[in-house]
Every structure is written in C-alpha cells, then in structure tokens.
C-alpha cells in the first residue's frame, strides 16, 4: 500500500450524443480510489463498466464526452494533461487487457513482434534486449515454449494462448495499473483460472493495481479485494471480498439469485425484476 492512492476517480461521466440531438450518459458519476489492490467492477451489458475502464485509459470513442471532477493517476491530472503525455502513459504505466484476443491482436504481425513493438514504444532498448525481454514475458505468463510462440501469428494460437500473449504484451513495460476488461470471458473455465492466477501473481509480486471488469459476479468475488457493482451507469453497491453474501442492494441480490447453483435445486430460477428506482 502506498500513502497516496494510485488512481482517483471522482464523478466520472461518459456521454454519447443520441440521434434526436440529446445525449445519453453511459457512465453517470462514478467515483472510486484505487491503491495497489485488485478491484472488481461488475455489471451486466450496458451498465457502463467497460466505458469506465476505457475513460480512465483515454480510449473512449472520439464522439463521446468524458467529464469528471477529478481523474488522477499517481499525481498526474488525466483531464488536463497533454495528449502526448497521455499516450506515453498508455501502454507504459497504465495498460489494458481486452476481452477477445481474436479481435484485439494485430492479425498480420507475429505475437513476438507485437510484444517487442510495445516495449520499444515505451522503453529505450536494443532490439536484441527487446527480444530477450519479450521471450521472458511470454515465459512469465506460463507459456511452455516461448521461442515457438514468439514466431506465431494470432490465428495460429488458441484463445487461452492469445490472451496470455496479450497479458505478456501489456505487462512488458511494467505498468503500475492494469485494467482487464473481461479478460477471461472468451476462455474455458479451466483456462480462465490459469489466466487469473497469472494476474494474481503479478499483483502480488509487482505491487500493481488491477481493475478487473467483468459480468461474472461469482468469479470476481472470488478473485478481487473489493467489488463495485454497477447498474445503469452508476455504482449501486461496494462490497468487500467475500462480502457477496451480505450484499444489500436488491440488484446485487437479484443477480446472485438468478444464477443456477450446483447442488441447489431452484425451479424455476428467480428472475430479476428491474426497478426503475435503481436507475435514478
């Protein structure tokens, strides 16, 4: 734990222009601070969880309007800093792992070349050293034969392997903050846990801050130190690890109830009655 938090978000809003000339707010006043910990952001599609992650990194769509009272990353004001500085931060000190390795890796570059490119964009290293570090990074995400995977193209590897390569790429510049947007949803349950344990080790060994964005309440609650539950662009509830059973908000409780559980027979399953008041 550091004295000052790594990331301060206060009243973050992301708005998109709608067709009738008005605007729709996808994120409506999200506030949180992040230390060197694992924070989970959970919500269903359309809750604004991914847009929150993207706004922090400065990857919101060009037509969106991002505003906040405060958006600070280790003392740097992200709202007013020049685009050049923002670009240097992105991939260097803060990085993002995206959902589907099939769509977010460059299909015409080998995995190795992509990792080397990321490193050399942020650190002044010789190409020989960059290659060596890329191989080491692939090894650190538990790829058995890094030299072989280094030369492969994204379409030649499985989803789990592609996701590991992406994590290697995002971590090679040794960021202080990693935002993982549904890093495991495209993967099998058994591979999911492997990828999570890689992330977990990196948080513990390197003292990195991690924001895990996911729709999977159960997975996030077993992994993160703290969970924010989002609904309709707002944080409706904040929970401590393992505090899922003590959730107060009817949305969180409804979300838990509608999951079928091994060993518990609930026929029919509870469905979620959405209250308009939750979205206010």
């Amino acid at each position, binding site marked *: 734990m550091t004295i000052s938090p790594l990331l301060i978000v206060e009243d973050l809003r992301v708005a998109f222009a709608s067709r009738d000339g008005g605007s729709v707010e996808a994120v409506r006043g999200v506030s949180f601070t992040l230390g060197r910990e694992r924070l989970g952001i959970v919500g*269903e*599609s359309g809750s604004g969880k991914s847009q929150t992650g993207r706004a922090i990194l400065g990857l919101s769509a060009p037509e969106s309007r991002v505003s906040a009272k405060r958006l600070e990353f280790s003392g740097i004001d992200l709202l007013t800093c020049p685009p050049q500085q923002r670009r240097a931060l992105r991939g260097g000190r803060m990085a993002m792992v995206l959902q589907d390795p099939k769509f977010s890796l460059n299909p015409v570059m080998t995995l190795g070349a992509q990792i080397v490119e990321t490193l050399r964009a942020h650190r002044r290293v010789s190409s020989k050293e960059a290659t060596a570090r890329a191989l080491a990074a692939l090894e650190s995400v538990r790829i058995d034969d890094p030299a072989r995977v280094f030369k492969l193209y994204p379409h030649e590897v499985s*989803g789990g392997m592609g996701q590991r390569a992406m994590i290697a790429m995002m971590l090679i510049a040794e960021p202080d903050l990693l935002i993982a947007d549904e890093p495991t949803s495209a993967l*099998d*349950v*058994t*591979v*999911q*846990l492997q990828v*999570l*344990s890689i992330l*977990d080790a990196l948080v513990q060994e390197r003292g990195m801050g991690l924001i895990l964005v996911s*729709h999977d*309440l*159960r*997975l996030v*609650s*077993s*992994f993160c130190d703290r969970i924010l539950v989002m609904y309709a662009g707002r944080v409706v509830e904040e929970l401590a690890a393992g505090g899922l059973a003590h959730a107060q908000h009817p949305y969180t409780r*409804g*979300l838990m109830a*509608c*999951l*079928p*559980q*091994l*060993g*518990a*027979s*609930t*026929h*029919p*399953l*509870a*469905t*979620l009655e959405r209250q308009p008041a939750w979205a206010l």
Partner: protein
Amino acid sequence: MNSNSNPALGLDVRQLRVVYDGFTAVADTSFCVLPGESFGIVGESGSGKSTVLRAICGLAPKAAGTVQLVGGDGSAVSAAQPAPGSQAFSRRVQMVFQDPYASLHPRQTVDRLLAEPLAIHGIADAETRIERALDEVGLGQGFRFRYPHQLSGGQRQRIAIARALILEPQILLLDEPTSALDASVQAEVLNLLEDLRQRRHLTFIMVSHDLAVVTHLCERLLVMQRGQSVELLAAADLAARRVSQPYTLSLMQAASGFRR
C-alpha cells in the same frame, strides 16, 4: 395443439465418430436419450460437444456410427428411420444455436425468419403458427415485424427458440443456448426452456460448458474431453459431488471460482 398427437421421441447415438481431415473431433461416443428426458453434454472448447449435436442433425459429417430416433420403451421406432439432415428428420429434431447475434438472418424480419421453416416443410397455417410461436416464447405480436438488430440478445434467443419450435419437433438440440447472455437474461431463457419442455413433452439435448446450467436443466449428462466421452452420470450425482473421473472433478473445481 400437436403436443399430444405426436408421441415423444428419444435419440440413440451409437459409436459416433466425426473426422475432419484426419483429425478425430469425436471418437466413438455412445449415449441414449429417452423420450421426454433432458440430457446434457459438458466439456471445454475442442472437446467435441458441439460437434456431437451437429452430427446428430446432419451438419457435421459422420465417419461412423448411427443416430436413431427411439420410442417410449427405448427401442428404435418401427417406422422408417429418417436420415439425419433429411426433411423428415428435421421435422422432428430442431436445433438452437449458441450465438443469437449470428444465428438470425440480419436482413429478414422476425415474421420472415419464422415463415421460412414452414415454407420449406410445406405447412399451410403459417399465420396462426407464427402468432402462437411468438406468444409461446413470451414475446407477443409486437415483435413480428422487427429486424434482429432491433432486439436484445435475450429477445433474439427467444426468436431462435420460436423458430426451432414452429415445426413442432419432439427433440430440441440446444448448443450453449445461454452462454452469450447476461446472468439475469440467462435465468429467463432457462425458465422458458423448462416451461416449454413441460408443456410440449420435449426431449432436450443440451451442450454447455457451465456445469451449473446443465445440472439445472438436465437429468443426466455426459462429460467429454478431446473428443472422448469421459463420464456419464446423473445430474444429482454431480450436484452431490459423486464423480469418479478426475477431469469431471477439475471442471467442478473450476466452476466454483478462483482459489488462491
């Protein structure tokens, strides 16, 4: 209603083998689904679970083995066995696919999507059947002339279910019907499927990677790994953790969340 005029059917799959260019996707898998039963197939990607479904309805080439419709006592139906993929077969066996964003024609209205199977099978009362199908999946007539892009994921999957049911089949093949949906929508679709099964005496074969979903909907299940069947067990045994194979156990552990 035809639900009572057609007796429930089951399915007997014996020594099924599917080979693609020398790669064996499914190796000698056998199982028997009794009429009215709900049967699950679980496994990770590449285990061949979806390929089994595709081979049953004739979408994947069968290298060896037989797929037979069976009657009440588990014996093959006496009438001529329709070949998988033939019209007579698809009249009885219909499939719902995984991704409702990819399985509906983007430029056809719901009305046309639902009319197509009726036209192929030369069924006359399209009007009433479409209306009834929409009501049955809980959407109503307001959705009839919409395009898929005007529907949410859950609504699309309901349309896909309506399209499968409009021919009044006795067997429904479900390939990960809820894995592309949010948890709350998944609960609604699972409830719908269960309700339809009871009302129409349907036989389900459902493929999923989610053990909790399969044990919720199915009575018996088959665990597959790398094209081989690993274990055949009752859902109640799985729920009570009475499993014998280490692979099944590792799937169960993975489903219970992350452990440090």
